[in-house]
Structures are given as structure tokens and as C-alpha cells.
């Protein structure tokens, strides 16, 4: 490990310990690391957006390719800044209106395709007598029951109540699996941070 790598890893180890210190209680070291990450993160995303969005969608089309029509969204973007003025703040609504209109208009067909059509298509498989077919049948029953749990226009009693009861159990298994995977993800991150600290200490003290 070179001297610069040693110093940079030392900085990373120090910041890791600063964050871990919160397990004891809120303290100045934790606050320092927390505020540092807020600033660094804001700066990182600002510059990333500058290079990937502002440069590619404003500077290149207008000044290099001569696409004058890209001036219109630029003017609308600048109009967003009128929010600081009480007198002119209403102008930012026009920019926001275009944003909302385009975002909702483009999202409806996309959501319809990805969240409705593709999900239903994936659930409509042929049911056979082997293990795959039984699993498909169970998944389809679980899906119909889980969807029926969210149907509130009919009272949940009788056979419909039974269906929604199966649905809530299916949902609980889903939530349990999601919870288990999340916890394991966090534990894996914790182990990775501890291994990083151990390795750094071994390099530092030559273990």
C-alpha cells in the first residue's frame, strides 16, 4: 500500500469510526461526518448532473449543434428561479406545469406496460401437473387473493373474506421475505465495514 493509499484509507477508516460512534450516542464526531457527507453528496450530484444533464442537454444542443429549440426548456428552467420573488413566483408554475404534464403523459403508457400488462402476462402461464405447474397455480391463487385484499368496494366477508384472508397471509410472507433480505443486506454491509477496518489496522500495525 502506497503512502497516499494509506492516508486515504486512514481517512475512510476515521469517517467509518465517526459514524459507528453514533451507536454510543450522538456526538461531535458523528455530526462532523454527517454534515460532511451532506456537503460532499450535494457537490457530487451537482457536478454529475452538470456533466450528464446540463452539458449534454443545454450546452451541446444549443451552442455546439445549433438546436435553437432547446432554448425553450432552458428559459422554462430559469423561470423556476422566480420562486425566490413573491411578485414573480407564479411564473415558476408554468415551468412546473410543463414538467408535470410531460412527466404524467409519458408515465401513463410506460406504467400501463411495465406495471400492469407485463405483470399480468408473467402471471398467465400454462398450468401443468408437474411441480412448476403447481407452483404457477399457487402463485396465481396467491396473486388473485392478494389483489382481492385491496378491493374495498365489497365487504370482506363470506367467500370473499376468505380470499382476502389468504391474500393478507400471502402479503405477510412477501413482507417477511423482503424484511429478511433487507436485514441480510445490512448485515453484509456491516461485515464489509468491519473487514475494511480490520485490514486497515493489519496494514498499519503489520499484523
Amino acid at each position, binding site marked *: 500500500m502506497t503512502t497516499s493509499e494509506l492516508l*486515504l484509507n486512514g481517512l*475512510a477508516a476515521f*469517517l467509518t469510526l465517526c459514524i*459507528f460512534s*453514533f*451507536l454510543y450516542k450522538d456526538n461531535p464526531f458523528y455530526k*462532523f*461526518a454527517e*454534515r*460532511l*457527507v*451532506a*456537503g*460532499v*453528496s450535494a457537490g*457530487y450530484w*451537482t*457536478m454529475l448532473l452538470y*456533466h450528464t444533464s446540463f452539458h449534454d*442537454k*443545454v450546452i451541446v444542443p444549443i451552442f455546439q449543434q445549433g438546436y435553437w429549440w432547446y432554448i425553450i*426548456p432552458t428559459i422554462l*428552467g*430559469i423561470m423556476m428561479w422566480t*420562486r425566490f420573488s413573491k411578485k414573480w413566483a*407564479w411564473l415558476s*408554475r408554468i*415551468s*412546473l*406545469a410543463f*414538467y*408535470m*404534464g410531460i412527466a*404524467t*403523459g409519458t408515465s401513463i403508457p410506460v406504467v*400501463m406496460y*411495465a*406495471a*400492469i400488462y407485463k*405483470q*399480468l402476462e408473467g402471471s398467465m402461464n400454462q398450468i401443468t401437473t408437474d411441480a412448476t405447474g403447481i*407452483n404457477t397455480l399457487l*402463485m396465481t391463487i396467491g*396473486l388473485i387473493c*392478494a*389483489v382481492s385484499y385491496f378491493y374495498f368496494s365489497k365487504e370482506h366477508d363470506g367467500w370473499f373474506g376468505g380470499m382476502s384472508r389468504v391474500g*393478507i*397471509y*400471502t*402479503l*405477510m410472507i*412477501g*413482507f417477511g421475505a423482503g424484511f429478511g433480505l*433487507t*436485514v*441480510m443486506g*445490512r*448485515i453484509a454491509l456491516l461485515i*464489509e*465495514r468491519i473487514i475494511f477496518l480490520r485490514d486497515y489496522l493489519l496494514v498499519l500495525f503489520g499484523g
Partner: protein
Amino acid sequence: MKRTLPLVIVFCSGILLIIQHFIPSEESEFLYTYALDWIITVGVYAIMLGIWSLIRVTVNKARRDPGERFYAITTLAGFSFMVLTGWRAESLHAGSIFMTAFNYILIPIQATIFSLLAFYVASASYRAFRARSALATVLLLTAFIVMLRLIPLGPISKANNWLVGWILMVPNLAASRAIILGVGLGMIATSMKIILGIERKYLGGD
């Protein structure tokens, strides 16, 4: 005028973009690409507004509370450092000061913050999921089985791995699909409400 004009714009642009989806032509494709670039551009300027707001709030906090001054300077210094080092196009390449700061400051802090959640999730789940009902028991049991998958359990591991695979591919898939369907329908309904001017909270007051 101040409220009606934005509503007319939302309606017209929303309907136009929906119709565009069903017209397969070059012009329609151009409109779609241009519209997406349009919202990206407006979004970038809105983010600049957010950055300005962050700076203003941080400076005001430092002015009001001397105890916060050091932390406010830390935030502003971190922000300025990244902006100054990330200005050039080469900054995004591996090995630059900008990417080094990302790798040795941002990644370790964020990974540690997320790893801290392991402790809090464990204590919160103990309080929340004590097996008081059959539903809570099912949730707890499933989480327990899924968590055991990564632990070597000798002869039980194989059976547990099969069980976890079945849970993820059958009941979990059914639950996920039901939620995705619900979210999808909700998003479409909300989008329609915005386009038709029923939902107008995004315009703010006055």
C-alpha cells in the same frame, strides 16, 4: 390566469404525450425525445434551486447558532471541494481528485450509515414483530427462514435453500406482483387526476 394557464398546459402536454405513444412515426419519436430532454433540463434548473436552498439554510443556521458554525462550514467546505474538483469533464474518470473523494469519503460514510441500520432494524423488529398474532408470526417466521439461508447449517442448509427459493418464487412473487399492480393502478389514477386538473396541490398556495 395565474392558476388556469398552468392547468391548461398540464392538460394539453399530458394528453399530447399520451396520444404520441400510439402514433408510430419519426415526428412522434422526436416529440417524445424532445419532451424527455425538456423535463431533464427543467429538472436540472430545479436542482440548482435546491442547492441554493441548501446553502442558504446552512448559512442561516451558522449565523443563528454559533455551536452549529463548525458543522455548517464542514458542509459548505465539502460541497465547494466537490464542485471545484469536479468542474472539468475528466473529473468523472477514475483516479481524479473528484472520484477519489467519492470513493474515500462518500462511499465509506454511506456504507457505514446503512450498516448501522442493521442494529436499529434488529431492535425495532423485536418491538414491532413480537409474535402477537398469526399474521405477525407468519411474517417473523418467513424473515427468519430467509435470513438463515446465508448461514451454514450443515445438512439443513440444502432443504432451507430450497424452501427460501420456493418462498421467493411463489408467495413472495405473488405478493410483489399484487403490490406492483396496485402501485401501477395508483400511479395511473394519480397521473390522470393531475392531467384533468383534479389534483393541483403541486401548484402551491394562492
